[in-house]
């Protein structure tokens, strides 16, 4: 890619990122909605964790602390997936998608903008949740995770993006009929990711499936750091490797669905039916 093409690519990614940020400029309900659900969830799980800590000690008390951490991390994964898919579907809802598809915007630039916007939103929400957790429950996210916080969170962000690309592919192929899956797919992953309970709590036959998900390694790694203080290097490496695979699969799937929608005529009808 030449220097001028790189500049044009950056310009188009910036255009789409700004297009998503414009939405927050004047819509207070939209901005509050982004924060509302995670904060409510944190309040719920935070008080449960507080209660567990009050009535127990030792490992169970540490488990209480891991619940708060798990809730914040789960929200990070969910929001990054939603950041990609909702941004994508926004242009279908507003019947703008044809304008974008015939513009010089490339699909990878469009996805890059949704990643960037999703990462910004996720960073803001995670910051707010971490502040509330510290203020209300004396739970210090940074101190509990030390240096592992960043790579573990980054792995969840990447997995969320991969899931977002996958669900966007479903929408581009099946249109409005597939919209429910945007909200549903993360909840398919949730029980398998050992978020609020350890992998050992799952039946033996299900564990290989769980271990095929990067999120399971992140949550297992998180508990390892909090409960034992041991390093989570193995889980981190496994999560990163699996993320590469899921990211590539998500990209292939999206492209396949795009080509299929272009063949069937669905692509031109997106947003108009």
């Amino acid at each position, binding site marked *: 890619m030449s220097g001028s093409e790189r500049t044009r690519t950056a310009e188009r990614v910036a255009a789409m990122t700004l297009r998503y940020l414009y939405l927050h400029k004047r819509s207070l309900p939209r901005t509050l909605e982004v924060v509302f659900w995670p904060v409510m969830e944190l309040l719920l799980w935070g008080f449960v964790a507080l209660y567990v800590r009050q009535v127990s000690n030792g490992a169970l008390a540490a488990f209480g602390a891991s619940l708060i951490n798990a809730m914040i991390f789960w929200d990070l994964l969910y929001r990054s997936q939603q950041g990609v898919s909702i941004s994508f579907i926004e242009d279908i809802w507003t019947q703008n998608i044809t304008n974008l598809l*015939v513009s010089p915007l*490339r699909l990878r630039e469009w996805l890059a903008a949704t990643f960037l916007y999703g990462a910004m939103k996720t960073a803001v929400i995670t910051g707010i949740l971490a502040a509330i957790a510290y203020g209300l429950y004396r739970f210090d996210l940074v101190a509990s995770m030390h240096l592992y916080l960043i790579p573990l969170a980054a792995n969840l962000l990447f997995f969320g993006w991969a899931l977002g690309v996958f669900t966007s592919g479903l929408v581009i192929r099946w249109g409005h009929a597939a919209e429910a899956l945007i909200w549903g797919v993360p909840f398919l992953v949730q029980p398998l990711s050992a978020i609020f309970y350890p992998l050992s709590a799952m039946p033996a036959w299900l564990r290989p499936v769980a271990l095929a998900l990067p999120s399971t390694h992140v949550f297992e790694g998180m508990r390892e750091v909090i409960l034992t203080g041991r390093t989570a290097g193995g889980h981190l490496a496994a999560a990163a490797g699996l993320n590469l695979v899921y990211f590539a699969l998500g990209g292939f799937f999206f492209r396949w669905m795009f080509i299929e929608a272009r063949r069937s*005529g669905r692509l031109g009808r997106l947003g108009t039916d």
Partner: protein
Amino acid sequence: MDIPGADGYNRRMTHENDAEASPLIRTRALTKIYDGSTALDALDLTLHRGEILGLLGPNGAGKTTAIHILLGLLEPTSGEASVFGLSPLTERHRIAARFNFSSAYVQLPSNLKVIENLRTYARLYGVRDRERRIAELLGTFEVGHLAGRITGALSAGERTRVNLAKAFLNDPELLLLDEPTASLDPEMADTVRRILLDIRRRKGLGILYTSHNMPEIESLCDRVLFIHEGRTIARGTPAEVVRHFRSANLEEAFIKIVRCGDLVWDRP
């Protein structure tokens, strides 16, 4: 070669170089079949620089199918389509910056301000001196006073004019306009037609135009191409088509063509 336009304006086709003479759009035997049903049947279409071609036909005739193929949104079953001599399917990115599109059925995001929408698209099209260009087009389409308004709060006619402003942002060589004046009042529709003719005269851009408004087609298009149930039924200048079908005007010819689908006239 002088080609008289319906507006009395003569375009001089220069053949000084191939780029000037080569068509903006060319399709050959373009066909699309959906589940055994033929939506477009062997369409041959050519659009040159400085020319306005009306693509006409009743609802479901295959106009949208043809436009979607040219936009790179739909893969044809067989045949060829090229825009600027390039494939819309495989070379869309080389085409996209040189052309633009506006349709009564495609909107700009309703939850953004007019100016935000135009800034977004100006960036996407790599427009230099964005603010000046946007101000110029807002003035041309008489929507400067709407720049700070939310797009969704505009009337249908105002939105159409903003859509047209977006379509001219990149100073295109080719425009695909799908019923662009469908929601405009007669006065504004006339203004838009005059703007299109003026820009065509000054810049020599080619326009593929669809509309159900036959008087508009007669006043605007150099040539028309009728399709019905995917098949090409007639082609020629509006006056030639009217004459051939022994009609008083293009609207009457349109009705005859649609009611007697077996009438086929392809100007040699």
